[in-house]
C-alpha cells in the first residue's frame, strides 16, 4: 500500500422513529425507504462483488439509532407489510401500464426490486440486516464505525462534557452489542468538531474520526499536507480530513453527478401524478398524496418536457461518472504526491442514504467504481482502503488540532443555531444538567428507580438529536420534528419531577419504556461527571 489511497466513507443514519401507538406512521417510512433503496441494495452489491471476486473496501458508519431500528422486531414486521404494499402497488402499476412500451417495463422494474428486497429481508437475512453487515465487517471488506448515540451536534454541548461522554459511551455499548467488538472509529455527527473533543474520544479508546476540510485547514498548527493526510490531535486521536473535490462531485445538487439529466428524477413520483383515489390506499396514514417510490421520469434538465427514465442509459452514465470520479482523484493524488513524503490519502465521506434513495443510481456508481478501481494497475492507480487500514499503516502523522467546524451550510453551527430551532437548546441543556444532577444524587440505584433513571437518560439523549433541528430549519416535517423534541423533553421532565417527589407512575413508565426503547443496555450513571 504505497500508492495513493482512497477511503470511501458512508454514514448510514436515521433518527429514531418508532411509534407503536399508531397502526401506521408516516415518518417510519423514512426507515423503510432507506432499507429498500440503500441498506439492502448495498448488501446486495457487497454479495455480488464478493461472488465475482471483485475487491472492495468501505468504511461504513451505522448510527446507534439506526442500529436500534434495524434490530427492532416491530419495525421489522412493519417493513415486511410495507414491502407487501409496495409490491401490490407495483402489480397495480404493471396492470395499468401493460402495453405501454415506455412505462410498463419501469413499473415492472420497481415491483421486481421490491420483491427482491422482500426475498432478501425474509429469506437471506431472516429479518436481521445487521447480520448482513456483520458478515462483511468480520471479513474485513468493510469496517463499521459508530457515531453519537442520537447524532447530537457535539459542539453545542461543549460546556457539558457529561452529555458528550454519554453520546459516545452509549454508542460504544450499542456497537459492542451489535457486532461484539469495540469500535475503532467514531463518526462526528454532522462532522461537528471542536478543539478538545479528541480528548474525550480518545479516553474511550477510539482511534480515529473524520473532520471537515475547513476545520482541518484552520487547525493549529496548520496541517502541512493539507487534506492529503490525517492529523494527530493533541490527545493522540487520528483525525482524517474530508476531500473537498470528491465532496463536490457527489454532493452538489446542481453540479454533482446526481444532477445528470439521464438519472432518475427523485421528485417526480406517481404519488403526485396520478389520481389520489388510486394512490391513497397504498400510502396509508390517511394521506391522499405522497412519495410512493414509483418514479418514471428522468431529470432531463431545465425543461418542462420531461423525458421518461431509461435505466440502461442511466447505468451507462453511472459507469462513466465512476470512471471520471477515479480519474479526477488520480489526478489530484498525482499533483499532491509530488509535494509529499508519504502517499496521499483522499477521504470521501457521504451520507449513505443518498446512494439509492435520492440518487437512485448511487449503488450502480459504487459498483462501477469498485470494478474500475480493481482493473487499474500502474503507479498512479489508487488503493481503496478503510480508515482503520490507513491508520495502522501510517501511524506517524503531523500534529494539529482542527478548528470548530461542521459540514453544515456555512461550515460552523449555523444550521443548528437558527431562528427556527434555537429554542431547543434551552431545553436540551437543561435536561442534560438535570440528568447529571440525578446521576449524582442516585449513584447506585437498582430496581424500579434504576429503570426510571435509565429511561430518563434515554429521553435526554433523544432530545439531543441534531436531525430535528435540521428539519425545523429546512421547514420539512418541522412540526413533527418539534413534537419529537417536545415529547422527549416532556418525558424527561416528568421523570425528573417524579424522582424529586419520590413517586413513580409505574404504568406510565412501562408504556414509555415500550415506546422509546433504543439502547436497552443504557446505564444512566454515564451522566456522572468524570473526576
Amino acid at each position: 500500500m504505497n500508492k495513493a489511497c482512497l477511503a470511501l466513507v458512508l454514514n448510514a443514519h436515521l433518527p429514531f422513529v418508532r411509534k407503536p401507538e399508531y397502526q401506521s406512521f408516516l415518518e417510519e417510512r423514512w426507515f423503510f425507504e432507506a432499507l429498500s433503496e440503500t441498506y439492502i441494495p448495498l448488501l446486495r452489491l457487497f454479495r455480488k462483488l464478493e461472488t465475482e471476486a471483485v475487491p472492495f473496501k468501505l468504511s461504513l458508519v451505522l448510527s446507534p439509532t439506526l442500529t436500534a431500528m434495524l434490530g427492532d422486531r416491530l419495525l421489522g414486521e412493519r417493513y415486511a407489510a410495507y414491502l407487501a404494499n409496495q409490491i401490490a402497488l407495483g402489480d397495480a402499476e404493471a396492470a395499468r401500464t401493460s402495453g405501454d412500451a415506455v412505462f410498463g417495463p419501469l413499473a415492472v422494474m420497481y415491483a421486481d426490486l421490491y420483491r427482491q428486497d422482500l426475498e432478501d429481508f425474509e429469506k437471506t437475512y431472516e429479518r436481521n440486516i445487521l447480520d448482513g453487515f456483520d458478515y462483511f465487517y468480520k471479513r474485513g471488506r468493510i469496517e463499521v464505525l459508530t457515531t453519537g448515540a442520537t447524532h447530537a451536534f457535539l459542539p453545542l454541548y461543549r460546556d457539558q462534557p457529561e452529555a458528550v461522554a454519554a453520546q459516545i459511551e452509549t454508542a460504544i455499548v450499542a456497537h459492542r452489542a451489535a457486532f461484539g467488538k469495540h469500535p475503532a472509529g467514531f463518526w462526528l455527527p454532522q462532522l461537528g468538531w471542536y478543539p478538545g473533543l479528541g480528548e474525550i474520544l480518545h479516553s474511550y479508546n477510539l482511534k480515529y474520526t473524520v473532520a471537515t476540510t475547513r476545520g482541518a485547514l484552520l487547525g493549529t498548527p496548520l496541517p502541512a499536507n493539507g487534506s492529503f493526510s490525517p492529523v494527530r490531535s493533541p490527545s493522540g486521536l487520528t483525525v482524517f480530513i474530508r476531500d473537498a473535490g470528491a465532496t463536490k462531485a457527489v454532493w452538489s445538487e446542481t453540479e454533482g453527478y446526481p444532477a445528470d439529466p439521464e438519472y432518475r428524477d427523485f421528485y417526480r413520483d406517481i404519488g403526485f401524478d396520478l389520481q389520489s383515489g388510486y394512490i391513497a390506499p397504498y400510502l396509508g396514514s390517511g394521506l391522499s398524496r405522497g412519495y410512493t417510490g414509483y418514479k418514471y421520469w428522468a431529470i432531463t434538465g431545465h425543461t418542462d418536457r420531461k423525458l421518461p427514465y431509461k435505466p440502461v442509459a442511466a447505468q451507462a452514465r453511472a459507469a462513466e461518472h465512476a470512471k471520471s470520479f477515479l480519474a479526477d482523484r488520480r489526478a489530484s493524488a498525482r499533483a499532491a504526491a509530488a509535494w509529499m513524503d508519504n502517499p496521499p490519502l483522499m477521504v470521501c465521506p457521504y451520507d449513505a442514504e443518498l446512494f439509492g434513495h435520492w440518487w437512485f443510481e448511487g449503488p450502480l456508481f459504487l459498483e462501477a467504481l469498485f470494478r474500475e478501481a480493481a482493473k487499474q494497475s500502474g503507479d498512479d492507480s489508487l488503493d481503496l482502503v478503510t480508515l482503520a487500514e490507513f491508520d495502522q499503516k501510517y501511524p506517524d502523522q503531523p500534529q494539529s488540532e482542527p478548528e470548530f467546524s461542521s459540514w453544515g451550510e456555512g461550515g460552523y453551527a449555523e444550521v443548528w443555531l437558527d431562528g427556527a430551532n434555537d429554542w431547543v437548546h434551552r431545553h436540551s441543556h437543561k435536561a442534560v444538567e438535570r440528568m447529571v444532577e440525578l446521576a449524582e444524587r442516585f449513584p447506585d440505584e437498582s430496581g424500579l428507580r434504576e429503570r426510571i433513571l435509565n429511561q430518563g437518560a434515554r429521553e435526554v439523549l433523544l432530545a439531543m438529536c441534531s436531525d430535528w433541528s435540521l428539519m425545523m430549519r429546512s421547514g420539512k416535517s418541522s412540526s413533527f420534528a418539534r413534537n419529537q423534541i417536545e415529547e422527549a423533553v416532556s418525558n424527561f421532565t416528568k421523570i425528573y419531577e417524579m424522582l424529586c417527589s419520590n413517586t413513580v407512575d409505574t404504568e406510565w413508565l412501562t408504556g414509555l419504556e415500550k415506546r422509546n426503547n433504543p439502547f436497552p443496555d443504557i446505564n444512566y450513571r454515564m451522566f456522572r461527571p468524570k473526576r
Partner: protein
Amino acid sequence: MVPAGLDKACANFQNEHVNPEKLALLSDGELHILADRMGLNLPEGLERLFVLEEILDALDEDSQERRLGQDGPGHVEEKKYSGAYPSFAIPAESSIPQRYNETMIRALPRDPSWVFAYWDISENKRAVLCPEDGDPGLFLRVSELSGAKDHQKRDYFDIPVSRDDCQWYINTPHPGARYRIDLCMHASVKAKVLAKSDEIRLPLQYMDANPDSLPQATRRLLLLSGCSELNIAAPRPSNPSRILPDGE
C-alpha cells in the same frame, strides 16, 4: 383530515405542490398565525381572500429560493427524509415548560462572528428587579477576554434588552477571540451582574499563517485541498501604491 404522524395538532402544507384546498380549511385566526410564522406582515382586517393569496405567493417564493440554494451538504442531507413535507405549521400548544425559574445565561458560539445567548431571570428576582410597569434597565455586557489564561477584560460593549427578551444573536468583532456574556442591569452608577456565561472562544475564519510565508510544498497542498474555494486564506491588505500586477 390531518393524518396521525404527519402532525397531531397542526396542518401541513406542501410547498412544492401548493395546496389552496388545505389552506382553505383553516380558520381566519389560524391563517393569521400561519402568516405571522412565515414572517408576513399583513394589515389587520385584511380580507380572507387576500390573506390566502399572500400566503400562497410566499410559499411559492420560498419554494423557488430553496430550489436555488440547494447545494450545501445540509440541503442534500434533507433528501433522506423524502417522506418529509415542507410544512409551515400552526404551532401547537407547547407541552414543555417555557422557563425553568432560574437566573442564568448561556452563550453558544455559532460561527466566527456570531454568538447565540439565552438567559432567564427567576420569578423572585424578576419580581424584585423587573417591575411590570418600569424599565429594569437590563442589558448584555459582551466582554472580549484577552487570552486563554488571562481572564481580564480587554474590551466590552453593551446591548440593551427588554424584560421580555430571553435570547439574542450577538455579532462579535474578532474571530478566534474569547468572550464572556454577562446579563446585567443598571443599578445607580454601576452595573449589577445577574448572571455570567462561561467563557467561550469563537472559531477562526481565516488561517493564522500568511500563505506567502509558508513552504512552497505546503502552499501547493493547501491549494490542492481546496483552500481557495473555502475562502479561508486571509485577504491580503490592499496596497494602493502597488501598480505592478501579481507575479512581476
